[in-house]
């Protein structure tokens, strides 16, 4: 299935070299979890990151579905 991975601001550097913008589409096996999607990118999977599925707060073991977007950004005060 096709899913999207969006890595925001300083996490963009974790996307494959040559990526334009902060989002890539990739092929992933059915049943893959949010955690499993992000692991290969080296996104810190602790409280230093905010990770959302389609913009929503979820358990990181939540399975990802066709067309979903997994997004992550560094937890930092600002705004």
């Amino acid at each position: 299935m096709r899913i999207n991975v969006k890595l925001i601001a300083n996490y963009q550097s974790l996307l494959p070299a040559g990526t334009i913008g902060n989002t890539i589409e990739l092929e992933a096996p059915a049943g893959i979890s949010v955690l499993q999607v992000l692991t290969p990118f080296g996104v810190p999977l602790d409280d230093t990151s905010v990770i959302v599925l389609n913009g929503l707060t979820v358990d990181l073991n939540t399975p990802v579905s066709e067309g979903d977007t997994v997004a992550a950004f560094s937890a930092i005060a600002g705004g």
Partner: protein
Amino acid sequence: MNGWHGRLLRINLTTQTTSIETIDPQVCRDFIGGRGVAMWYISKEVDPQVDPLSPDNKLVFAAGPLTATPAPTGNRYMVVTKSPLTGALAHSNSGGEFPTWMKRTGFDLFIFEGRAEGPVYVWVDEDRVEVRAAAHVWGKDTHETTDILKAETSDEARVACIGPAGENLALMAAIMNDKHRAAARSGVGAVMGSKNLKAVVAMGNKNPDLHDPTAMRDVSVDTSKNVGADVKKGSNMRIYGTSYVPQVTNTLGIFPTNNFQQGTFEHTKNIDGDALKNQYLIRHTPCYRCPLSCGRLTEVPDGKYKGKGEGPEYETISSLGSGCGVHDLAALVKANYLCNEYGMDTIGTGMTIAAAMEMYEKGYIPESVIGQPLKFGDHDAMIDMIKKMAHREGFGNDLAMGSYRLCEKYGHPEIAVTTRKQEFPGYDPRGSQGMGLLYATSNKGASHMEGDVAYEEVFGVPVKENPLSTDGKAELVKHFEDAFALIDSSGLCVFVAIRYVFSKDRLIFPQRLSEMMNFTTGAGYTPEEIMKAAERVYNIERLFVLKAGSTEDTLPYRMLHEPLPDGPAKGKVVELDKMLPEFYQLRGWDEKGWPTKEKLEELGLTM
């Protein structure tokens, strides 16, 4: 005294006389400093029913006990007054250099009262204070004014001033310092303008004495090292400043778009941190003694939006960008420069224009009244409106009253996205429920700076909260409001304070901040005592707001009755009724939001 100078400078602009007074050490201890001590004086000396633009209102500049100490980001001051925008309380915060220079004059507070007969500025060089004529800078923008007044006082001095917007009593007028920094919100610049006070120029060498200089130095160095370690790892705040936030809020569906008609903006990538950094960033420009350095000098080098200045920050990108449907970055950056030069709050300015755009598109305000089309996304029309607002020309005269009064005048109050008549900042609370409770209850009207629970709901600092849930939000909002009252009273910046001088608990706890306060002042606060003092500050402000007649804690129609049409929070409204009763209970307030007799006794306050 240590930390606090224990002295205030009172300037009567009507009589053009000045006096120096001591501040009761017990008042300093009980109300912390800065915002808290300023509020104690406002509460004692200003009738809550006073016309905010009359000579009877007072304008207080207040540095905190940690201002001008080694504490990283100990560079803030607060402007406290009765607000002409909200009819309630204004307490607006700014950094840069002026606050430190102000504290080094040897005063914690400047209190301006009365009204000068003609334009004046006040020049404070320690105890040498002069009220000088300012007719030659009246009408000039904040940059020219700053340059001229430094040239005729001292290049070593720092300037806080108003621009044309403040002179013309526009209700979103800011007080700008160091050209680019703003005590922006609630119309504090209009109060300054109503007093014919164009500028305050400050300089001195009186750093506050410290109770334990060695311990204060050590804790400050250690805190700076912690900030530095994050910066070295690649902190977004260093790389982008707050301009990285549009991508975050857009992803969560809370990026105010077209006057909060939507929560996502299809052109976000055109106005986000990468676009700004790649096209216009020159260098970082930190406030005094800040290891984070989120400020940025930018330049649009050529074309019709040519200009140079600082920013824009996230809130400006949200209000003058997505809020107005604007995605031409050069125009947005130029609009930000103009607001700084005219001395205007970019949130109030942008969201008032956004409300006018919506009313224009819906046919509620005809083109003949505005004098031109005013569609969402029309960046040139937005820039025209900014100029007209500052100078109160034509339709700009209506806009200068802010969105609440504008929408009411044209018969559609439901279009205004305000609480206590103040425009919302850049977090749509339908997708950030705690922010909804904050906006509804905030003493100063809608403001993230009143207790920014977006830190947890949006940014995951120090822990991540589900923004769509109402569970536990009453407790979180109450706690953050008190924590922000503490930070604002201390003289620190929230960006560094929240992450580095509080504990990393859901209910952040001021362990290190208490240490800094004690090493500086010798007051011997426990963290519990200092949080109680912050609660005292919040409640004395609450009493003033209620007595001013601003008694309703609610949200505008759109937030309660129009579900978000798009994005992750689609279908949501703010469930205020699920949070407000619990909030009142936790606050020790009655069912109408008034502090109970028991709560006031506990805090040592009287009605």
